[in-house]
């Protein structure tokens, strides 16, 4: 199903060399009947001798160049280091909650965690404000508070338009193009910029000639450039350029548009009653005037008696069974002759009765020939693909949204998540086997995704709880944590002398039963006003009258003041007036009660002026909302809808969350060495990593090492 593609110039030289080698082999053959064997043998010999030839050459060149490279590195190195460890291996389990972890450890269900804690130490790990993935991992990466790394939320708002935008990545447009009739030839690559600032600790290690392999640490798109290898993660887009758009082909007419993250596409009968066709909408073709979407026809033929279907796209076909996810299927779009843009998708027939529906996961950028920079060096993603097979590259690869929209189900989501988890594990072990010195970081996302999507199975009375008992998924979260424990066990088995092992999570998780619409609250209390005649149901704050609005909520974590000189239509004067308004809002939100449930919804609204320090703190929301257990910003508010009640039930599968008071959802930290700090925070880990390699943490870093270096004999 997935023919490897001509991946590299190395391949071309392989082919040339193959012909040469075959020729040589033939010339050396004795004359006579034996010569007839030539071409037959050619098929066997083809490539392989050539490959050997090329490897010898590569190895030879590498060996010859080695002394020069070493000399060059020694010249550029900033001072000598005395590492305290040979390797630092870091396993990140995004979102693994300490309460659940501790319960399972106490019950003996996580023996390897327990063993690791006994050999070194276990602590709860203070997360960042806010306790969400992009912020916390950026702090892990840079050893700084958000005021210095500039990531405060998933979304940032453009003060010129009040519209949300991705906080971590900016993809520019190409304005220099050559026009040839309908053709548009771009003369430059679009600039893709990482908006996370400051300096990753692996970059600092690299300046001292210490190699790091960094696999799927969030907020690494585009990837960092340093002495080492990195596979990017959040927020790598899909091939459509979005953060994940699934497709549902269906014969069902109409149907509501998905709120976010999905496309509903028609599936039409073609000829016989059991054959259908549809068109996959691909990325835009920027080579053509007007950038039309590239399209790939898809054909589906049902075999009702056998209960399966044959799907074909691009001349490739796969057999599908209803309710079973296919393997990775390669889609190839051709904007113009000679250029291919390839992606990977997984398909599933969701029904094949009277109506037929086919689900396609978001189209991941193909790692073997990525359409965007997803790794450093550029070929690292291709290397991993060759080493472990095709894998998900999308930042948020597990299709949470299709499950939210009930296009897929709990079982499919579990399969998808578990498969990605296994891909990740294969990457980790591929790196572990080749990595002799330096740092190796791998982040696993499954715990976070499973927390989010299966929390409703663990809590009686959750508004999103399944109708009846569902024994298959009741213990999904525990199963995932136990799997994490197995991964830790397998890594521990491969540790050697001088290897340090850390296991950590960036935050925990708690229940998300009720959504809070902060904009509705601001409207009700007169801080936000709607345009004449608007009912506030428009998305992205389109119905807000900015000339009378003093505060608004955008993104997932906070509230902004409509500040003069900062926002395009700001009306709040900076200084004393702004401070007074902030204090007033804080007083109103601190301890905000959900009357209907008689529960405190907001523990505290934090003044970010006091939380953050650093050059970028001006980009932060003015107030950060610390929700209580069970509460979070509502879906509507996150999409900029003002209308509706302030509090509402969350009935989506996405039923657990951690966008709450960060003190409620710390992460975990385990190490195979003692942890001297009593109350370590995620910001302390970068300085600790540097200290383990014998480096003094630079002054801009905020944390402090959590272990006394004197504990380590020099290696």
């Amino acid at each position, binding site marked *: 199903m997935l023919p490897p593609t001509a991946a590299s110039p190395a391949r071309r030289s392989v082919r040339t060399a193959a012909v040469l080698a075959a020729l040589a082999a033939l010339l050396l053959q004795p004359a006579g009947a034996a010569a007839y064997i030539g071409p037959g043998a050619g098929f066997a010999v083809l490539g392989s001798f050539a490959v050997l030839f090329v490897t010898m050459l590569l190895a030879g060149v590498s060996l010859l160049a080695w002394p020069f490279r070493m000399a060059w590195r020694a010249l550029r190195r900033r001072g000598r280091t005395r590492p305290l460890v040979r390797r630092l291996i870091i396993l990140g389990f995004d979102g693994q909650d300490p309460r659940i972890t501790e319960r399972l450890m106490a019950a003996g269900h996580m023996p390897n965690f327990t063993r690791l804690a006994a050999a070194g130490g276990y602590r709860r790990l203070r997360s960042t404000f806010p306790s969400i993935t992009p912020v916390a991992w950026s702090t892990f990466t840079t050893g700084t508070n958000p005021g*210095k790394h500039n990531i405060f939320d998933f979304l940032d708002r453009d003060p010129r*338009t009040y519209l*949300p935008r991705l906080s971590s990545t900016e993809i520019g*447009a190409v304005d220099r193009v050559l026009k040839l009739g309908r053709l548009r030839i771009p003369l430059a690559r679009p600039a893709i910029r990482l908006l996370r600032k400051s300096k990753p600790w692996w970059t600092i290690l690299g300046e001292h000639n210490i190699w790091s392999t960094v696999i799927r640490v969030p907020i690494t798109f585009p990837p960092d450039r340093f002495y080492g290898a990195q596979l990017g993660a959040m927020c790598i887009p899909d091939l459509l350029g*979005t953060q994940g758009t699934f497709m549902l082909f269906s014969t069902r007419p109409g149907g509501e548009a998905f709120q976010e*993250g999905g496309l509903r596409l028609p599936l039409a009968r073609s000829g016989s009653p059991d054959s259908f066709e549809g068109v996959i909408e691909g990325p835009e073709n920027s080579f053509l005037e007007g950038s039309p979407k590239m399209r790939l026809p898809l054909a589906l033929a049902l075999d009702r008696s056998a209960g399966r279907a044959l799907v074909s796209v691009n001349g490739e076909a796969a057999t599908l069974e209803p309710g079973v996810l296919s393997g990775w299927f390669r889609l190839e779009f051709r904007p113009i002759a000679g250029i291919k843009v390839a992606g990977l998708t997984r398909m599933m027939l969701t029904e094949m009765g009277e109506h037929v529906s086919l689900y396609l996961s978001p189209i991941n950028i193909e790692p073997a020939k990525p359409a965007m920079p997803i790794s450093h060096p550029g070929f690292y993603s291709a290397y991993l693909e060759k080493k472990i097979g095709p894998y998900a590259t999308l930042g*948020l690869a597990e299709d949470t*949204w299709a499950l939210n929209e009930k296009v897929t189900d709990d079982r499919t989501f579990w399969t998808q998540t578990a498969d990605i988890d296994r891909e990740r594990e294969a990457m980790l072990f591929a790196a572990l086997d080749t990595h002799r010195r330096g740092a190796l970081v791998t982040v696993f996302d499954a715990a976070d995704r499973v927390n989010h999507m299966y929390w409703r199975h663990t809590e009686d009375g959750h508004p999103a709880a399944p109708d009846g008992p569902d024994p298959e998924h009741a213990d999904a979260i525990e199963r995932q944590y136990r799997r994490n424990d197995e991964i830790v066990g397998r890594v521990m088995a491969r540790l050697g002398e001088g290897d340090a092992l850390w296991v950590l999570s960036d935050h925990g998780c708690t229940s998300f039963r009720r959504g809070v619409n902060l904009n509705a609250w601001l409207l009700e209390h007169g801080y936000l006003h709607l345009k004449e005649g608007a009912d506030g149901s428009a998305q992205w704050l389109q119905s807000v009258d900015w000339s009378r609005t003093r505060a608004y909520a955008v993104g997932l974590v906070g509230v902004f003041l409509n500040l003069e000189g900062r926002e395009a239509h700001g009306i709040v004067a900076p200084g004393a007036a702004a401070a007074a308004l902030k204090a007033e809002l804080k007083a109103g939100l601190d301890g905000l009660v959900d009357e209907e449930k008689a529960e405190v919804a907001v523990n505290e609204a934090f003044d970010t002026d006091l939380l953050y320090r650093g*050059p970028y703190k001006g980009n932060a929301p003015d107030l950060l909302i610390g929700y209580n257990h069970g509460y979070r910003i509502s879906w509507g508010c996150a999409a900029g809808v003002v209308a509706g009640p302030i509090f509402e039930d969350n009935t989506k599968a996405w039923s657990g969350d951690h966008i709450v008071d960060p003190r409620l959802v710390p992460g975990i930290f385990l190490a195979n060495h003692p942890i001297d700090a009593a109350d370590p925070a995620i910001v302390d880990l970068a300085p600790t990593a540097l200290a383990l390699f014998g480096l003094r943490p630079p002054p*801009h870093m905020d944390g402090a090492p959590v272990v006394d270096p004197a504990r380590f004999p020099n290696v």
Partner: protein
Amino acid sequence: MFDYTKVKLEKSLVERVRRFAEIAGYASPEEFITHALEKELAQLEEAGSEEEIKKRLQGLGYMS
């Protein structure tokens, strides 16, 4: 994307930048200079076209 180019600055200015970069919490003088320029540019540059923005919004989705 990783394309860099060099710009000439007065030595004394760079020295001042270097001193204050650390105090302000930047990881390097380059980061300080980049940030200062970006802040200035943000005042001058227009936001993207409405269509572009809409497209970008569609791509956001909800996130954890």
